[in-house]
């Protein structure tokens, strides 16, 4: 179903598709991006996870070269200046703000952006069709975008970034303000796009999204990358211990040594090996009424790194 001619023409010769080195950008006193470096290997989904104002959008804008860095460099497939025409043709970006024309239909929006990338004729028609399928907007293709729901606009906003079939995709918060159904659809599409062999940068402040979609995640705050790696490695290094919450049958046998004080019948403790601890207590005769084990997640990672939650 998906074909990528441009993709193969790209001539991938480097292991990292996007490499960002010591990138800096300040707006007056605000250091929006403050010495950021990362590398994204080919065909991976890379997440930039951070709260509002962390510098995610600024990083994306620096990668596509529409704002100039104060310092540092960006390399796309080993080439330095991302504003070069042949590199631009291979990058698709869905801006955080809905960058589509309300007074044009979905079809017209897609065709217009396609033409800017040099598509025409049958090829353009095919790509527009493909994108309408991707966005699930075939039946509304001729309606003005102004009449679409927020979710439909979001999907079109993403589709407009893919109309020229780029091997590199930058998606800036593609799920803002959409209902769970549209969101799931967007996730499916992103997974599909990744399975096609694309390299995707995905920014979000939802850790569930990063956890579901991303191969690697950089946690970013105040313009700095606090930690970067696969989800598992991040949780392992920064997630801390798991949490056990239990309600016990009273009385508790006297020989059982509880790892924390009882609060009425409730027991809550942190552990690096929660399952073993639970089993040991059961062996000592402790009876559980209810039991909940929380594994550390990216939210916990962020909390541990910054002392703050991702969203307030």
């Amino acid at each position, binding site marked *: 179903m998906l074909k990528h001619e441009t993709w193969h023409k790209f001539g991938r010769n480097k292991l990292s598709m996007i490499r960002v080195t010591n990138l800096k950008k300040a707006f007056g006193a605000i250091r929006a991006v403050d010495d950021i470096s990362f590398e994204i290997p080919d065909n991976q989904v890379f997440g930039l996870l951070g709260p509002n104002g962390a510098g995610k959008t600024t990083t994306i804008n620096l990668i*596509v070269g*529409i*704002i*100039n860095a104060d310092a540092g460099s960006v390399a796309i497939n080993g080439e330095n200046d991302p504003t070069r*025409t*042949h590199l*631009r*043709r291979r*990058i698709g*970006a869905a*801006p*955080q*703000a*809905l*960058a*589509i*024309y309300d*007074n*044009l239909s979905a079809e*017209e929006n897609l065709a*217009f*952006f396609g*033409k*800017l*990338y*040099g598509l025409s004729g049958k090829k353009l028609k095919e790509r527009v069709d493909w994108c309408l399928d991707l966005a699930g907007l075939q039946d509304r293709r001729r309606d*003005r975008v102004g009449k679409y729901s927020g979710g439909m606009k979001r999907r079109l906003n993403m589709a*407009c970034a893919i109309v020229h079939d780029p091997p590199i995709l930058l998606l800036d918060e593609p799920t803002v303000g959409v209902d769970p159904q549209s969101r799931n659809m967007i996730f499916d599409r992103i997974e599909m796009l990744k399975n096609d062999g694309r390299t995707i940068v995905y920014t979000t402040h939802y850790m569930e999204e990063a956890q579901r979609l991303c191969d690697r995640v950089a946690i970013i705050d105040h313009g700095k990358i606090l930690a970067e790696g696969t989800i598992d490695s991040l949780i392992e290094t920064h997630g801390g211990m798991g949490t056990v919450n239990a309600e016990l049958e009273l009385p508790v046998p006297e020989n059982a040594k509880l790892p924390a004080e009882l609060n009425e019948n409730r027991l809550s403790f942190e552990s690096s090996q929660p399952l073993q601890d639970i089993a040991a207590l059961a062996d000592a005769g402790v009876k559980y009424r209810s039991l909940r084990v929380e594994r550390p997640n990216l939210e916990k990672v962020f909390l541990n790194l910054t002392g703050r939650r991702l969203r307030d």
Partner: protein
Amino acid sequence: MGAMFHLAIKDLKLLWRDKVGFFWVLGFPLLIALFFGSIYSGAGSATARSMKIAVITDNMNPTVQSFYDQLGKSDVLVLTPMPLDSARPLVAQGKLAAYVQYIDSSKSAFDMFSGHKPHIKVGIDPSRKAEAGYLNGLLNQAFFMQLQSRFTDVKGWRRYLKDQRQSWDSIGTGWNSKLGMDFFEKLDGVLESAEKIDSAYAMKSDSASDSVSEKNYSPFAALDVAYEDVAVIWAGPRSSFEITFPQSLQWALIAAAAAFSLSIVTERTRGTFLRLRIAPISRMQILGGKGLACFIFCVGVCSLLMAVGILIFGVGVASWTYLILAILAGGICFVGVMMLISVMGKTEAAVSGAGWAVMLVMAMIGGGMMPLMFMPSWLKSISHLSPIKWGILALEGSIWRGFGFGEMILPLAVLVGVGVVGFIIGTMILSRSDG
């Protein structure tokens, strides 16, 4: 170039779909042209209602006088008696619609019944076909009325018969029978003429409305109208619409500049501008596309408005070449104005507020509201600062001022200059503000 073209097409499509915006660029200017056009002209079209003509007084006699008197009875004609030498230049300048000269070489007023043909010379611009036909009808009517008054003038008849008898007497008796025959022949001729007049009169009252505009209508074969072509060099607007249509074009340009400058800001705030900048096209192509769309739109709307003015409201064109140049230069000028306005703020409200404020002042001092000729002189000198003044001047130069190349070049150069400088400055500011 291809990308610029796609960008321009997109912008034109967007504007076309914005019906309210469209009213401001097309409907509103047209309303201005019509509203002020009819206010300035009093009630409706001035040209159709009264026609100012000169009657030539070079060879006056009672017959000529009585013809002019008859002609003056028409409500449509305003007559000014003057010699031919004064009349011709006035017609050439468009200040008078035509001149009429009644040439009568008969000795007696009653000679017209004796096979003697008076003739009338009309000097009129060959392009004024409708007026010429109209005038012809009025001339025939006056001539006929003059004849009719002769018939009922019994005193005149008796004087005529007496004159005739006297002339027989002087010739001598030998000829009496021959002259008597002559007299009866003449009388017969008169009666024949009267018959013709009667039937012609009946015809005329049947089809009065048609006959006046019919050039060849001639109730009396004796009336011989000769036309002299006096090509008009316009020295003033022929109607108020020739003043208000150039103004209306300026309003269309203002509205177009407002709409397109707003569309630049909207693209910036909405983020579509960002998507354009990510695309493999240069910034010059993006802004060039905007400029191109604005230019095409300006020229299109101006042409449409002018077509309405020319075809429906009788606006004349002295030079088509200059009219086309004036419209093109106006378009270029407002592309520059549009770019300058688009960088006057970062939000839609700021730009649209600033844009209209600037352009209203420009229109006010440039003669877009009140025609320059009605303005106090101090305001007239300030008006040089407004591109609107130059736009109107260029259009008027091609419509009724009859400008030559030397006179056209200044307003055209100012318009193109404002356009180019505005575009360059606007582009520079826009590039800088994007970081």
